[in-house]
């Protein structure tokens, strides 16, 4: 009896120990690259040498002169793509969750499909199409900011639609009927009842859309032009000729920006609840 009790206790401790080790490994896998990047970004070296001769923050000062234009293009593209995705995606989410109409499945598939297609394929397809149109119409499409934004809408829209649908899944339609019976016209019902109910989904969708657009590399490769490069591609190009701590500095800056946005938004809408 006592021996058996001992044994289970011992097994329990072993189990707990194993779980602990696994946890530490997992956390290390996630955070070691981040910490290393942060560490590298303050090396006072032009080539990465270990151990460094000294530490400096000058790489951070170089971010804007070096990547300012790319950062601006990325931010502009991402913001515009988010805006267009919201304009299209929120009504689409409401429509798809509320009505059963012919072609509903087709619309739903079309809106969500870009998630399943490799970015390279989308980028190449858009590039070829743009060139074809250009040949026939003399319309300078390829390499334009408009095309870049349109392409990014393609990959951001699924996130907005999907999160809007998720936020409406638990929405009680009776509240809308109550509003209608109280004299609210259909648009007032949507504005005063439906959209507030979707708030967390809209915010989370916009955030994901922004990140997806801001970080996209594969598709965007086909859409850039001289003087119009997004941040991930500018970094890639820079890396081809230099390996210095500036790249680490820009990576840290990016993590800080996105991380701050996530934390602030999570306070607002509890993203985990919508995404889970």
């Amino acid at each position, binding site marked *: 009896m006592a021996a058996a009790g001992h044994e289970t206790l011992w097994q329990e401790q072993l189990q707990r120990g194993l779980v602990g080790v696994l946890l530490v490994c997992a956390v290390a896998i996630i955070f070691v690259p981040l910490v290393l990047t942060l560490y590298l970004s303050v090396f006072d070296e032009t080539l990465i040498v270990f151990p460094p001769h000294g530490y400096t923050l000058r790489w951070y000062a170089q971010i804007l002169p070096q990547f300012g234009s790319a950062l601006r293009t990325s931010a502009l593209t991402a913001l515009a793509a988010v805006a267009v995705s919201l304009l299209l995606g929120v009504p689409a989410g409401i429509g798809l969750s509320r009505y059963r109409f012919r072609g509903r499945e087709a619309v739903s598939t079309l809106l969500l499909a870009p998630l399943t297609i490799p970015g390279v394929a989308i980028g190449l397809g858009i590039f070829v199409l743009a060139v074809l149109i250009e040949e026939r119409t003399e319309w300078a499409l390829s390499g334009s900011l408009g095309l870049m934004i349109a392409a990014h809408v393609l990959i951001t829209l699924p996130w907005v639609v999907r999160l809007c649908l998720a936020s409406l899944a638990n929405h*009680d339609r*009776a509240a809308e*009927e*109550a*509003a209608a*019976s*109280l*004299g*609210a016209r259909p648009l007032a019902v949507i504005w005063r*009842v439906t959209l507030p109910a979707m708030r967390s989904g809209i915010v989370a969708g916009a955030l994901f859309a922004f990140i997806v657009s801001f970080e996209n590399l594969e598709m965007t490769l086909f859409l850039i032009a001289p003087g119009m490069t997004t941040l991930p591609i500018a970094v890639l190009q820079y890396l081809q000729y230099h390996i210095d701590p500036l790249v680490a500095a820009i990576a840290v800056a990016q993590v800080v920006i996105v991380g701050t946005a996530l934390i602030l938004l999570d306070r607002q809408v509890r993203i985990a609840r919508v995404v889970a």
Partner: protein
Amino acid sequence: MTRLTLDRLEKHYGTALAVDAVSLDIAPGEMVVLLGPSGCGKTTTLRMVAGFVPATSGDVLLDGQSILALPPYRREMGLVFQSYALFPHMTVADNIGFGLEMRGMKREPRRQRVLEMLRLARLEPLAERLPRQLSGGQQQRVALARALAINPRVLLLDEPLSNLDASLRAEVGRDIRLLQRDAGLTTIMVTHDQDEAMAMADRLVVMRDGQVQQTGTQEDLYERPATPFVASFIGRSTMLEGKLSDGNTIVVDGTALHLAGHYAANGASTLALRPERLWLEAPGVTAPGAVAGTVELASYLGPVREHLVRIGPDTRLLVRDSTAAAGRLHASGEAVSVRWDTGAERVFDAALTPLLAETTTTTSTRMSTHV
């Protein structure tokens, strides 16, 4: 004060008939309860009146004017839902004021009206709370106050008590009834719960399979059910199917029951007997309103005694009598006579039409010879 009329209102879904020619005239200030099992068409009827479901044919009239062409937001109906349907992001006060705001009422008079509704619904201390911070009973009172704030022409209640704890139902039900009566609101309530319906209605409509089975007061439905369905749905009835002969004997499962009344019909019939109107006597009675049987189960339930009496190989009668009356709990296996008078029995012919007892028959009166 508005009169609400449903005129042969119908709803078809494809070939399925959800609501079949429902006609109903509701007097100003009257509370009518649509009662029936789920899928009987009561909710669809309510939703047609509210304007959320388009009617296939028929009409809905307020004070004689058709409102079928009006969208829901112009029908001026107060709705209360099973799920409360409060606006989760608005405070109690803003919920109540929503309808007034939609009507373009200015801020100050709106505040006054909201305060008045808060007072009526006893919600004053909760005005600035959000719905999720309230109990179910409080939420439903907010929903009611919100519906009443706009002075609706008609109040529609869709299973308003079903989500509430049993202990709260009676209380919120009384609140609804009092506010409705004080405001003189013409009201339709939908429920599947007969106790709730009996407690709250001025008049009841029993529905089944999209059709009205019977419309009447509580007493009409209980004392004079129009169909076997009503007899079993309102209160309890033991339903026995058998063959009626000589107008006063019905043979059920090989056993002859002597009816209390005399009927001008013969053939296949259904007999409904109210358990609480039957009583037990010593075996061997063959008077009108009697059948012989054996006690199978006997339970003492506090206010009542219940006996399950077997009267045929596969037929049993439930007898329920008050423990305040004379009598005793019988042992199982004891032979007894089950007795009743005309008030306990209801006979339906093969077409499910109730048969009326002929007045010439002498009704047996309850005797004091309890065993």
